[in-house]
Protein backbone atom coordinates (compact mmCIF):
# COMPACT_ATOMS: atom_id res chain seq x y z
CA UNK A 1 0.00 0.00 0.00
CA UNK A 2 2.73 2.44 1.02
CA UNK A 3 4.96 1.59 -1.94
CA UNK A 4 1.94 1.94 -4.20
CA UNK A 5 1.46 5.46 -2.93
CA UNK A 6 5.09 6.35 -3.46
CA UNK A 7 5.04 5.02 -7.02
CA UNK A 8 1.96 7.08 -7.77
CA UNK A 9 3.56 10.18 -6.32
CA UNK A 10 6.74 9.70 -8.32
CA UNK A 11 4.78 9.12 -11.54
CA UNK A 12 2.71 12.24 -10.98
CA UNK A 13 5.80 14.37 -10.39
CA UNK A 14 7.56 12.83 -13.37
CA UNK A 15 4.57 13.53 -15.62
CA UNK A 16 4.45 17.13 -14.47
CA UNK A 17 8.13 17.54 -15.31
CA UNK A 18 7.70 15.97 -18.75
CA UNK A 19 4.83 18.32 -19.61
CA UNK A 20 6.77 21.31 -18.34
CA UNK A 21 9.81 20.34 -20.39
CA UNK A 22 7.69 19.92 -23.53
CA UNK A 23 6.30 23.40 -22.91
CA UNK A 24 9.74 24.88 -22.46
CA UNK A 25 11.85 23.11 -25.10
CA UNK A 26 10.96 25.36 -28.07
CA UNK A 27 11.93 28.46 -26.10
CA UNK A 28 15.21 26.94 -24.92
CA UNK A 29 15.92 25.92 -28.49
CA UNK A 30 15.50 29.48 -29.72
CA UNK A 31 17.54 30.90 -26.86
CA UNK A 32 20.47 28.51 -27.39
CA UNK A 33 20.60 29.03 -31.14
CA UNK A 34 20.49 32.80 -30.84
CA UNK A 35 24.00 32.58 -29.35
CA UNK A 36 25.48 30.31 -32.05
CA UNK A 37 27.13 31.15 -35.34
CA UNK A 38 25.25 30.56 -38.56
CA UNK A 39 26.82 27.12 -39.23
CA UNK A 40 26.09 25.70 -35.77
CA UNK A 41 22.58 27.12 -35.77
CA UNK A 42 21.76 25.65 -39.17
CA UNK A 43 20.50 22.36 -37.73
CA UNK A 44 18.71 24.00 -34.80
CA UNK A 45 19.63 21.47 -32.13
CA UNK A 46 19.59 21.66 -28.36
CA UNK A 47 23.38 21.61 -27.92
CA UNK A 48 24.60 24.35 -25.62
CA UNK A 49 26.12 27.23 -27.56
CA UNK A 50 29.93 27.21 -27.57
CA UNK A 51 32.06 30.00 -26.20
CA UNK A 52 32.38 32.73 -27.16
CA UNK A 53 28.66 33.54 -27.33
CA UNK A 54 27.71 35.29 -30.54
CA UNK A 55 26.37 38.48 -29.01
CA UNK A 56 26.89 40.04 -32.44
CA UNK A 57 23.75 38.18 -33.62
CA UNK A 58 21.71 40.61 -31.59
CA UNK A 59 23.45 43.76 -32.80
CA UNK A 60 23.25 42.31 -36.31
CA UNK A 61 19.49 41.83 -36.28
CA UNK A 62 18.93 45.18 -34.65
CA UNK A 63 20.69 46.91 -37.55
CA UNK A 64 19.61 44.57 -40.39
CA UNK A 65 16.02 44.15 -39.28
CA UNK A 66 15.58 47.82 -38.29
CA UNK A 67 14.50 46.51 -34.88
CA UNK A 68 15.00 49.76 -32.99
CA UNK A 69 12.28 51.40 -35.07
CA UNK A 70 9.94 48.39 -34.81
CA UNK A 71 10.50 48.17 -31.08
CA UNK A 72 9.56 51.82 -30.72
CA UNK A 73 6.47 51.25 -32.87
CA UNK A 74 5.34 48.24 -30.85
CA UNK A 75 5.81 50.10 -27.58
CA UNK A 76 3.87 53.07 -28.93
CA UNK A 77 0.99 50.94 -30.24
CA UNK A 78 0.73 48.86 -27.08
CA UNK A 79 1.09 51.67 -24.54
CA UNK A 80 -1.31 54.00 -26.35
CA UNK A 81 -3.99 51.36 -26.82
CA UNK A 82 -3.60 50.15 -23.23
CA UNK A 83 -4.15 53.70 -21.95
CA UNK A 84 -7.11 54.36 -24.26
CA UNK A 85 -8.66 50.98 -23.59
CA UNK A 86 -8.39 51.33 -19.80
CA UNK A 87 -10.01 54.74 -19.66
CA UNK A 88 -12.77 54.12 -22.24
CA UNK A 89 -13.61 50.65 -20.95
CA UNK A 90 -13.62 51.73 -17.31
CA UNK A 91 -15.91 54.72 -17.94
CA UNK A 92 -18.26 52.63 -20.04
CA UNK A 93 -18.33 49.57 -17.79
CA UNK A 94 -18.82 51.78 -14.73
CA UNK A 95 -22.01 53.36 -16.04
CA UNK A 96 -23.35 50.12 -17.50
CA UNK A 97 -22.71 48.23 -14.28
CA UNK A 98 -24.05 50.87 -11.88
CA UNK A 99 -27.16 51.87 -13.78
CA UNK A 100 -28.74 48.67 -15.04
CA UNK A 101 -31.55 50.12 -17.03
CA UNK A 102 -32.97 48.08 -19.90
CA UNK A 103 -31.09 50.18 -22.45
CA UNK A 104 -27.81 49.87 -20.59
CA UNK A 105 -28.11 46.11 -20.27
CA UNK A 106 -28.74 45.88 -23.99
CA UNK A 107 -25.72 48.10 -24.69
CA UNK A 108 -23.62 45.87 -22.46
CA UNK A 109 -24.66 42.71 -24.31
CA UNK A 110 -24.02 44.44 -27.64
CA UNK A 111 -20.48 45.34 -26.54
CA UNK A 112 -19.67 41.95 -25.05
CA UNK A 113 -20.78 40.25 -28.25
CA UNK A 114 -17.54 41.64 -29.67
CA UNK A 115 -15.56 39.00 -27.76
CA UNK A 116 -16.86 36.44 -30.23
CA UNK A 117 -17.36 38.51 -33.36
CA UNK A 118 -14.81 38.21 -36.12
CA UNK A 119 -13.58 41.31 -37.92
CA UNK A 120 -14.41 41.60 -41.60
CA UNK A 121 -11.00 42.95 -42.62
CA UNK A 122 -11.97 43.45 -46.26
CA UNK A 123 -14.86 45.76 -45.43
CA UNK A 124 -12.87 47.29 -42.58
CA UNK A 125 -10.45 48.54 -45.21
CA UNK A 126 -13.26 50.72 -46.61
CA UNK A 127 -13.98 52.18 -43.18
CA UNK A 128 -10.28 52.70 -42.42
CA UNK A 129 -9.79 54.41 -45.78
CA UNK A 130 -12.73 56.73 -45.11
CA UNK A 131 -11.06 58.01 -41.92
CA UNK A 132 -7.57 58.03 -43.54
CA UNK A 133 -6.53 55.37 -41.03
CA UNK A 134 -4.68 53.20 -43.52
CA UNK A 135 -0.94 53.16 -43.00
CA UNK A 136 -1.38 55.53 -40.08
CA UNK A 137 -0.14 55.08 -36.52
CA UNK A 138 -3.13 56.73 -34.81
CA UNK A 139 -5.48 54.68 -37.00
CA UNK A 140 -3.87 51.42 -35.93
CA UNK A 141 -3.94 52.44 -32.27
CA UNK A 142 -7.68 53.15 -32.48
CA UNK A 143 -8.27 49.84 -34.23
CA UNK A 144 -6.30 47.98 -31.56
CA UNK A 145 -8.32 49.74 -28.88
CA UNK A 146 -11.62 48.86 -30.55
CA UNK A 147 -10.55 45.21 -30.71
CA UNK A 148 -9.62 45.07 -27.02
CA UNK A 149 -12.62 46.97 -25.66
CA UNK A 150 -15.21 44.14 -25.47
CA UNK A 151 -13.18 41.90 -23.18
CA UNK A 152 -11.95 44.83 -21.08
CA UNK A 153 -15.54 46.00 -20.57
CA UNK A 154 -16.62 42.47 -19.67
CA UNK A 155 -13.86 42.21 -17.03
CA UNK A 156 -14.45 45.66 -15.53
CA UNK A 157 -18.25 45.29 -15.54
CA UNK A 158 -17.94 42.18 -13.39
CA UNK A 159 -15.44 43.84 -11.08
CA UNK A 160 -17.41 47.06 -10.62
CA UNK A 161 -20.54 45.16 -9.59
CA UNK A 162 -18.56 44.03 -6.52
CA UNK A 163 -17.44 47.57 -5.57
CA UNK A 164 -19.86 48.93 -2.95
CA UNK A 165 -22.06 51.86 -4.03
CA UNK A 166 -22.07 53.54 -0.57
CA UNK A 167 -19.14 55.73 -1.54
CA UNK A 168 -20.93 56.91 -4.69
CA UNK A 169 -23.98 57.90 -2.67
CA UNK A 170 -21.94 59.72 -0.02
CA UNK A 171 -19.99 61.59 -2.68
CA UNK A 172 -23.12 62.63 -4.53
CA UNK A 173 -24.70 63.89 -1.27
CA UNK A 174 -21.60 66.02 -0.73
CA UNK A 175 -22.21 67.61 -4.12
CA UNK A 176 -19.52 65.78 -6.07
CA UNK A 177 -19.93 65.88 -9.87
CA UNK A 178 -20.24 62.58 -11.80
CA UNK A 179 -16.87 63.18 -13.46
CA UNK A 180 -15.08 63.84 -10.16
CA UNK A 181 -16.78 60.86 -8.59
CA UNK A 182 -15.55 58.60 -11.36
CA UNK A 183 -11.99 59.88 -11.67
CA UNK A 184 -11.15 60.49 -8.02
CA UNK A 185 -13.21 57.92 -6.13
CA UNK A 186 -14.20 55.01 -8.36
CA UNK A 187 -11.20 54.75 -10.69
CA UNK A 188 -8.65 54.26 -7.87
CA UNK A 189 -10.79 51.42 -6.52
CA UNK A 190 -10.58 49.63 -9.87
CA UNK A 191 -6.79 49.25 -9.74
CA UNK A 192 -6.70 45.43 -9.53
CA UNK A 193 -9.04 45.02 -12.51
CA UNK A 194 -7.26 47.75 -14.46
CA UNK A 195 -3.96 45.96 -13.83
CA UNK A 196 -5.46 42.85 -15.43
CA UNK A 197 -6.80 44.84 -18.37
CA UNK A 198 -3.41 46.51 -18.79
CA UNK A 199 -1.45 43.29 -18.83
CA UNK A 200 -3.86 41.45 -21.16
CA UNK A 201 -4.23 44.37 -23.56
CA UNK A 202 -0.48 44.82 -23.65
CA UNK A 203 0.11 41.16 -24.50
CA UNK A 204 -2.63 41.06 -27.12
CA UNK A 205 -1.53 44.22 -28.88
CA UNK A 206 2.15 43.33 -28.70
CA UNK A 207 1.38 39.98 -30.35
CA UNK A 208 -1.11 41.36 -32.88
CA UNK A 209 -0.14 40.53 -36.43
CA UNK A 210 -3.23 40.52 -38.66
CA UNK A 211 -4.20 44.20 -38.52
CA UNK A 212 -0.74 45.60 -39.28
CA UNK A 213 -0.46 43.02 -42.05
CA UNK A 214 -3.61 44.42 -43.66
CA UNK A 215 -3.24 48.10 -42.90
CA UNK A 216 0.43 49.06 -42.61
CA UNK A 217 2.34 49.14 -45.88
CA UNK A 218 5.44 51.15 -44.98
CA UNK A 219 8.04 49.17 -43.08
CA UNK A 220 9.02 52.06 -40.81
CA UNK A 221 5.62 51.77 -39.14
CA UNK A 222 5.76 48.00 -38.62
CA UNK A 223 5.54 46.51 -35.14
CA UNK A 224 7.93 43.77 -34.00
CA UNK A 225 5.72 40.89 -35.14
CA UNK A 226 5.60 42.09 -38.71
CA UNK A 227 9.31 42.83 -38.97
CA UNK A 228 10.22 39.50 -37.41
CA UNK A 229 8.08 37.76 -40.01
CA UNK A 230 9.63 39.78 -42.80
CA UNK A 231 13.09 39.03 -41.43
CA UNK A 232 12.18 35.33 -41.37
CA UNK A 233 11.43 35.52 -45.10
CA UNK A 234 14.61 37.43 -45.96
CA UNK A 235 17.18 35.50 -43.90
CA UNK A 236 15.55 32.14 -44.30
CA UNK A 237 18.78 30.18 -43.79
CA UNK A 238 20.35 32.17 -40.96
CA UNK A 239 18.54 30.60 -38.04
CA UNK A 240 20.96 32.20 -35.58
CA UNK A 241 19.73 35.63 -36.69
CA UNK A 242 16.08 34.56 -36.79
CA UNK A 243 16.42 33.18 -33.26
CA UNK A 244 18.07 36.37 -32.03
CA UNK A 245 15.23 38.34 -33.58
CA UNK A 246 12.63 36.09 -31.95
CA UNK A 247 14.35 36.38 -28.56
CA UNK A 248 14.24 40.17 -28.76
CA UNK A 249 10.57 40.10 -29.79
CA UNK A 250 9.34 37.76 -27.07
CA UNK A 251 11.55 39.08 -24.28
CA UNK A 252 9.13 41.90 -23.33
CA UNK A 253 6.25 39.41 -23.36
CA UNK A 254 8.08 37.00 -21.07
CA UNK A 255 9.02 39.81 -18.70
CA UNK A 256 5.44 41.08 -18.57
CA UNK A 257 4.24 37.52 -18.04
CA UNK A 258 6.63 36.86 -15.16
CA UNK A 259 5.78 40.18 -13.48
CA UNK A 260 2.04 40.10 -14.10
CA UNK A 261 1.30 36.38 -13.97
CA UNK A 262 -1.22 36.85 -11.18
CA UNK A 263 -3.20 39.39 -13.23
CA UNK A 264 -3.07 37.38 -16.43
CA UNK A 265 -4.37 34.23 -14.84
CA UNK A 266 -7.10 36.00 -12.90
CA UNK A 267 -8.15 37.93 -16.00
CA UNK A 268 -8.17 35.00 -18.33
CA UNK A 269 -10.07 32.78 -15.94
CA UNK A 270 -12.60 35.35 -14.77
CA UNK A 271 -16.03 34.75 -16.15
CA UNK A 272 -14.96 31.21 -16.88
CA UNK A 273 -15.44 29.91 -13.36
CA UNK A 274 -18.35 30.67 -11.14
CA UNK A 275 -16.83 31.95 -7.93
Amino acid at each position, binding site marked *: MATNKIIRKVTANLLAWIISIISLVPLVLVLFNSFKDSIHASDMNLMLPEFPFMWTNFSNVISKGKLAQSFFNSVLYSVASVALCCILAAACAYVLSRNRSKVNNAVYLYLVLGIAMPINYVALMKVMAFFHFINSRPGLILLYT*AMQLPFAIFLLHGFISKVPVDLDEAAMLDGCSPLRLFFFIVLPLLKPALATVTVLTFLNTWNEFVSPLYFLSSSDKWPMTLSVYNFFGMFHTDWNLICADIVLTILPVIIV*YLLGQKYIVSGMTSGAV*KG
Partner: protein
Amino acid sequence: MNKNKTYPFYFTIGALLLYTVLFVLPGIMGIGYSFTDWSAYSDKLNFVGFENFKTVFSADENYIKILTNTLLFTVVTTILKNALGLLMAVLLTKHIKFLNFHRGIIFMPNVLSTLIVGMIFTSILDPATGLLNTFFNSTGLGFFAKPWLTTSQFAFGSVMAVDIWKGLGYIMTILIAGILSISPTYYEAASIDGANGVQAFFKITLPLLLPTLATTTVLNVIYGLKIFDMVYAMTNGGPGKATTEVLYTAVFKMFSNGQYAVGTALSSVMFLFMVVIGFFMIRVMTKNEVVE
Protein backbone atom coordinates in the same frame (compact mmCIF):
# COMPACT_ATOMS: atom_id res chain seq x y z
CA MET B 1 -30.11 59.30 -5.99
CA ASN B 2 -30.96 59.77 -9.65
CA LYS B 3 -29.09 57.02 -11.40
CA ASN B 4 -29.23 58.58 -14.83
CA LYS B 5 -27.67 61.75 -13.42
CA THR B 6 -25.02 60.08 -11.28
CA TYR B 7 -24.07 57.64 -14.02
CA PRO B 8 -24.52 59.66 -17.22
CA PHE B 9 -24.79 57.77 -20.48
CA TYR B 10 -22.11 59.90 -22.17
CA PHE B 11 -19.48 57.92 -20.22
CA THR B 12 -20.15 55.02 -22.58
CA ILE B 13 -19.98 57.02 -25.80
CA GLY B 14 -16.22 56.74 -26.42
CA ALA B 15 -16.12 52.97 -26.20
CA LEU B 16 -19.44 52.58 -27.97
CA LEU B 17 -18.38 54.77 -30.89
CA LEU B 18 -14.97 53.13 -31.46
CA TYR B 19 -16.43 49.65 -31.18
CA THR B 20 -19.37 50.37 -33.47
CA VAL B 21 -17.39 52.13 -36.19
CA LEU B 22 -14.32 49.89 -36.37
CA PHE B 23 -15.83 46.58 -35.36
CA VAL B 24 -19.55 46.25 -36.02
CA LEU B 25 -19.91 48.58 -38.99
CA PRO B 26 -17.41 46.66 -41.19
CA GLY B 27 -19.26 43.46 -40.35
CA ILE B 28 -22.59 44.89 -41.47
CA MET B 29 -21.18 46.76 -44.47
CA GLY B 30 -19.43 43.55 -45.44
CA ILE B 31 -22.78 41.79 -45.71
CA GLY B 32 -23.90 44.52 -48.09
CA TYR B 33 -20.75 44.32 -50.19
CA SER B 34 -21.21 40.54 -50.45
CA PHE B 35 -24.02 41.21 -52.94
CA THR B 36 -21.84 43.31 -55.25
CA ASP B 37 -18.95 42.70 -57.63
CA TRP B 38 -16.54 44.84 -55.58
CA SER B 39 -12.95 44.28 -56.66
CA ALA B 40 -9.63 46.06 -56.96
CA TYR B 41 -9.99 46.18 -60.75
CA SER B 42 -12.97 48.44 -61.27
CA ASP B 43 -14.32 51.51 -59.53
CA LYS B 44 -17.93 50.69 -60.28
CA LEU B 45 -20.03 48.60 -57.91
CA ASN B 46 -22.77 46.46 -59.42
CA PHE B 47 -25.40 44.48 -57.60
CA VAL B 48 -24.95 40.80 -58.38
CA GLY B 49 -27.40 39.16 -55.97
CA PHE B 50 -26.31 35.89 -54.43
CA GLU B 51 -23.57 35.34 -57.03
CA ASN B 52 -20.70 35.51 -54.49
CA PHE B 53 -22.43 33.16 -52.10
CA LYS B 54 -23.03 30.75 -54.96
CA THR B 55 -19.28 30.85 -55.64
CA VAL B 56 -18.48 30.29 -51.98
CA PHE B 57 -20.79 27.29 -51.68
CA SER B 58 -20.26 25.81 -55.15
CA ALA B 59 -18.81 22.34 -55.30
CA ASP B 60 -16.18 22.93 -57.96
CA GLU B 61 -14.30 25.61 -56.02
CA ASN B 62 -12.06 25.10 -53.02
CA TYR B 63 -14.19 27.20 -50.73
CA ILE B 64 -16.13 24.28 -49.27
CA LYS B 65 -12.81 22.72 -48.38
CA ILE B 66 -11.83 25.95 -46.63
CA LEU B 67 -15.02 25.93 -44.55
CA THR B 68 -14.70 22.25 -43.64
CA ASN B 69 -11.01 22.77 -42.79
CA THR B 70 -11.89 25.60 -40.44
CA LEU B 71 -14.58 23.50 -38.78
CA LEU B 72 -12.31 20.48 -38.55
CA PHE B 73 -9.55 22.59 -36.98
CA THR B 74 -12.01 24.01 -34.47
CA VAL B 75 -13.58 20.68 -33.51
CA VAL B 76 -10.32 18.75 -33.20
CA THR B 77 -8.43 21.39 -31.23
CA THR B 78 -11.42 22.05 -28.96
CA ILE B 79 -11.89 18.39 -28.08
CA LEU B 80 -8.22 17.64 -27.57
CA LYS B 81 -7.48 20.79 -25.60
CA ASN B 82 -10.42 20.08 -23.30
CA ALA B 83 -9.53 16.42 -22.82
CA LEU B 84 -5.78 16.89 -22.33
CA GLY B 85 -6.32 20.09 -20.36
CA LEU B 86 -8.63 18.25 -18.00
CA LEU B 87 -6.11 15.46 -17.42
CA MET B 88 -3.37 18.00 -16.77
CA ALA B 89 -5.60 20.06 -14.48
CA VAL B 90 -6.36 16.95 -12.40
CA LEU B 91 -2.64 16.15 -12.28
CA LEU B 92 -1.69 19.67 -11.23
CA THR B 93 -4.21 19.90 -8.42
CA LYS B 94 -2.56 16.95 -6.68
CA HIS B 95 0.26 17.10 -4.16
CA ILE B 96 3.12 17.73 -6.51
CA LYS B 97 6.36 19.51 -5.76
CA PHE B 98 6.94 22.91 -7.42
CA LEU B 99 3.24 23.06 -8.29
CA ASN B 100 3.20 26.77 -9.13
CA PHE B 101 6.37 26.47 -11.16
CA HIS B 102 4.78 23.77 -13.33
CA ARG B 103 1.55 25.71 -13.73
CA GLY B 104 3.48 28.84 -14.68
CA ILE B 105 5.67 27.10 -17.24
CA ILE B 106 2.81 25.21 -18.88
CA PHE B 107 0.79 28.40 -19.22
CA MET B 108 3.67 30.33 -20.78
CA PRO B 109 3.32 29.30 -24.47
CA ASN B 110 -0.09 30.93 -24.36
CA VAL B 111 1.29 34.45 -23.95
CA LEU B 112 3.69 34.12 -26.88
CA SER B 113 2.76 35.47 -30.28
CA THR B 114 1.02 32.77 -32.31
CA LEU B 115 2.97 33.86 -35.36
CA ILE B 116 6.31 33.35 -33.62
CA VAL B 117 5.27 29.98 -32.24
CA GLY B 118 4.42 28.97 -35.81
CA MET B 119 7.81 30.15 -37.02
CA ILE B 120 9.68 28.25 -34.30
CA PHE B 121 7.79 25.09 -35.16
CA THR B 122 8.62 25.29 -38.87
CA SER B 123 12.16 24.63 -37.67
CA ILE B 124 11.25 21.96 -35.12
CA LEU B 125 9.10 20.07 -37.67
CA ASP B 126 11.62 20.34 -40.49
CA PRO B 127 11.84 16.83 -42.02
CA ALA B 128 15.65 16.72 -42.30
CA THR B 129 17.14 18.87 -39.57
CA GLY B 130 14.15 19.48 -37.30
CA LEU B 131 14.38 18.76 -33.60
CA LEU B 132 11.44 16.36 -33.58
CA ASN B 133 12.72 14.02 -36.27
CA THR B 134 16.28 14.23 -34.91
CA PHE B 135 14.88 13.19 -31.53
CA PHE B 136 12.97 10.24 -33.05
CA ASN B 137 15.97 9.09 -35.08
CA SER B 138 18.41 9.27 -32.18
CA THR B 139 16.14 7.34 -29.81
CA GLY B 140 15.48 4.47 -32.21
CA LEU B 141 11.97 5.65 -32.97
CA GLY B 142 12.96 6.53 -36.52
CA PHE B 143 9.69 5.18 -37.94
CA PHE B 144 7.92 8.10 -36.26
CA ALA B 145 10.01 10.62 -38.18
CA LYS B 146 7.74 12.04 -40.87
CA PRO B 147 7.75 14.98 -43.30
CA TRP B 148 5.40 16.88 -41.00
CA LEU B 149 4.66 20.09 -42.82
CA THR B 150 5.56 19.24 -46.40
CA THR B 151 3.09 16.46 -47.20
CA SER B 152 -0.64 16.85 -47.36
CA GLN B 153 -1.03 13.74 -45.22
CA PHE B 154 0.47 15.27 -42.07
CA ALA B 155 0.44 19.03 -42.58
CA PHE B 156 -2.96 19.87 -41.12
CA GLY B 157 -2.50 17.52 -38.18
CA SER B 158 0.85 19.11 -37.43
CA VAL B 159 -0.61 22.62 -37.45
CA MET B 160 -3.38 21.47 -35.11
CA ALA B 161 -0.87 19.78 -32.81
CA VAL B 162 1.18 22.96 -32.51
CA ASP B 163 -1.95 24.93 -31.78
CA ILE B 164 -2.87 22.46 -29.06
CA TRP B 165 0.64 22.75 -27.61
CA LYS B 166 0.21 26.50 -27.44
CA GLY B 167 -3.34 26.68 -26.08
CA LEU B 168 -3.36 23.76 -23.65
CA GLY B 169 -1.98 25.76 -20.72
CA TYR B 170 -4.81 28.26 -20.93
CA ILE B 171 -7.53 25.63 -20.84
CA MET B 172 -5.70 23.80 -18.08
CA THR B 173 -5.50 26.97 -15.99
CA ILE B 174 -9.23 27.64 -16.29
CA LEU B 175 -10.00 24.02 -15.38
CA ILE B 176 -7.64 24.17 -12.39
CA ALA B 177 -9.58 27.19 -11.14
CA GLY B 178 -12.77 25.20 -11.69
CA ILE B 179 -11.52 22.17 -9.79
CA LEU B 180 -10.27 24.31 -6.90
CA SER B 181 -13.71 25.88 -6.57
CA ILE B 182 -15.28 22.48 -5.87
CA SER B 183 -15.88 22.14 -2.17
CA PRO B 184 -13.53 19.56 -0.56
CA THR B 185 -16.39 18.26 1.56
CA TYR B 186 -17.67 16.28 -1.45
CA TYR B 187 -14.38 14.43 -1.69
CA GLU B 188 -14.26 13.84 2.05
CA ALA B 189 -17.74 12.36 1.98
CA ALA B 190 -16.81 10.22 -1.01
CA SER B 191 -13.70 8.86 0.65
CA ILE B 192 -15.67 8.03 3.80
CA ASP B 193 -18.05 6.07 1.57
CA GLY B 194 -15.04 4.24 0.17
CA ALA B 195 -14.92 5.76 -3.31
CA ASN B 196 -11.58 5.58 -5.11
CA GLY B 197 -9.92 8.32 -7.14
CA VAL B 198 -11.44 7.30 -10.47
CA GLN B 199 -14.95 7.14 -9.01
CA ALA B 200 -14.49 10.52 -7.34
CA PHE B 201 -13.39 11.97 -10.68
CA PHE B 202 -16.39 10.69 -12.62
CA LYS B 203 -19.00 11.22 -9.91
CA ILE B 204 -17.80 14.54 -8.43
CA THR B 205 -15.15 16.38 -10.43
CA LEU B 206 -16.56 15.88 -13.92
CA PRO B 207 -20.23 16.72 -13.23
CA LEU B 208 -19.36 19.79 -11.15
CA LEU B 209 -16.88 20.91 -13.80
CA LEU B 210 -19.39 20.84 -16.65
CA PRO B 211 -20.17 24.58 -16.54
CA THR B 212 -16.45 25.35 -16.69
CA LEU B 213 -16.02 22.90 -19.56
CA ALA B 214 -18.86 24.65 -21.38
CA THR B 215 -16.93 27.90 -21.10
CA THR B 216 -13.63 26.46 -22.29
CA THR B 217 -15.48 24.89 -25.21
CA VAL B 218 -17.06 28.20 -26.22
CA LEU B 219 -13.72 30.02 -25.88
CA ASN B 220 -11.97 27.37 -27.95
CA VAL B 221 -14.60 27.46 -30.67
CA ILE B 222 -14.38 31.25 -30.93
CA TYR B 223 -10.61 31.07 -31.09
CA GLY B 224 -10.48 28.16 -33.52
CA LEU B 225 -12.80 29.68 -36.11
CA LYS B 226 -10.66 32.83 -36.19
CA ILE B 227 -7.32 31.03 -36.55
CA PHE B 228 -4.94 32.83 -38.88
CA ASP B 229 -1.40 33.47 -37.59
CA MET B 230 -0.60 29.83 -36.92
CA VAL B 231 -1.55 28.60 -40.38
CA TYR B 232 -0.07 31.66 -42.08
CA ALA B 233 3.32 31.14 -40.45
CA MET B 234 3.50 27.36 -40.75
CA THR B 235 2.03 26.38 -44.12
CA ASN B 236 0.13 29.38 -45.51
CA GLY B 237 -2.58 27.05 -46.75
CA GLY B 238 -0.30 24.53 -48.46
CA PRO B 239 1.19 22.12 -49.26
CA GLY B 240 -0.69 21.49 -52.48
CA LYS B 241 -4.16 22.84 -53.06
CA ALA B 242 -5.78 24.24 -49.93
CA THR B 243 -4.62 21.37 -47.71
CA THR B 244 -4.48 23.55 -44.65
CA GLU B 245 -6.37 26.58 -45.90
CA VAL B 246 -8.68 28.09 -43.29
CA LEU B 247 -11.14 30.96 -43.48
CA TYR B 248 -8.96 33.86 -42.46
CA THR B 249 -5.98 32.82 -44.61
CA ALA B 250 -8.29 32.44 -47.60
CA VAL B 251 -9.82 35.87 -46.97
CA PHE B 252 -6.35 37.40 -46.78
CA LYS B 253 -5.42 35.81 -50.11
CA MET B 254 -8.56 37.17 -51.76
CA PHE B 255 -7.83 40.56 -50.26
CA SER B 256 -4.29 40.48 -51.67
CA ASN B 257 -5.62 39.43 -55.09
CA GLY B 258 -8.18 42.20 -55.09
CA GLN B 259 -11.18 39.79 -55.04
CA TYR B 260 -12.86 41.89 -52.39
CA ALA B 261 -16.44 40.75 -53.00
CA VAL B 262 -15.78 37.03 -52.55
CA GLY B 263 -13.54 37.79 -49.58
CA THR B 264 -16.22 39.78 -47.88
CA ALA B 265 -18.87 37.16 -48.68
CA LEU B 266 -16.75 34.52 -47.01
CA SER B 267 -16.16 36.83 -44.03
CA SER B 268 -19.88 37.47 -43.78
CA VAL B 269 -20.71 33.78 -43.62
CA MET B 270 -18.39 33.60 -40.64
CA PHE B 271 -19.72 36.84 -39.16
CA LEU B 272 -23.30 35.57 -39.03
CA PHE B 273 -22.19 32.19 -37.72
CA MET B 274 -20.12 33.80 -34.96
CA VAL B 275 -22.85 36.18 -33.87
CA VAL B 276 -24.97 33.12 -33.12
CA ILE B 277 -22.09 31.54 -31.21
CA GLY B 278 -21.61 34.88 -29.46
CA PHE B 279 -25.10 34.67 -28.00
CA PHE B 280 -24.28 31.25 -26.57
CA MET B 281 -21.07 32.69 -25.18
CA ILE B 282 -22.89 35.51 -23.46
CA ARG B 283 -25.33 33.09 -21.90
CA VAL B 284 -22.50 30.95 -20.60
CA MET B 285 -20.21 33.74 -19.43
CA THR B 286 -22.69 36.18 -17.92
CA LYS B 287 -25.07 33.68 -16.41
CA ASN B 288 -24.65 34.87 -12.85
CA GLU B 289 -24.03 38.50 -13.63
CA VAL B 290 -26.56 40.37 -15.73
CA VAL B 291 -29.70 38.92 -14.23
CA GLU B 292 -29.02 40.18 -10.69
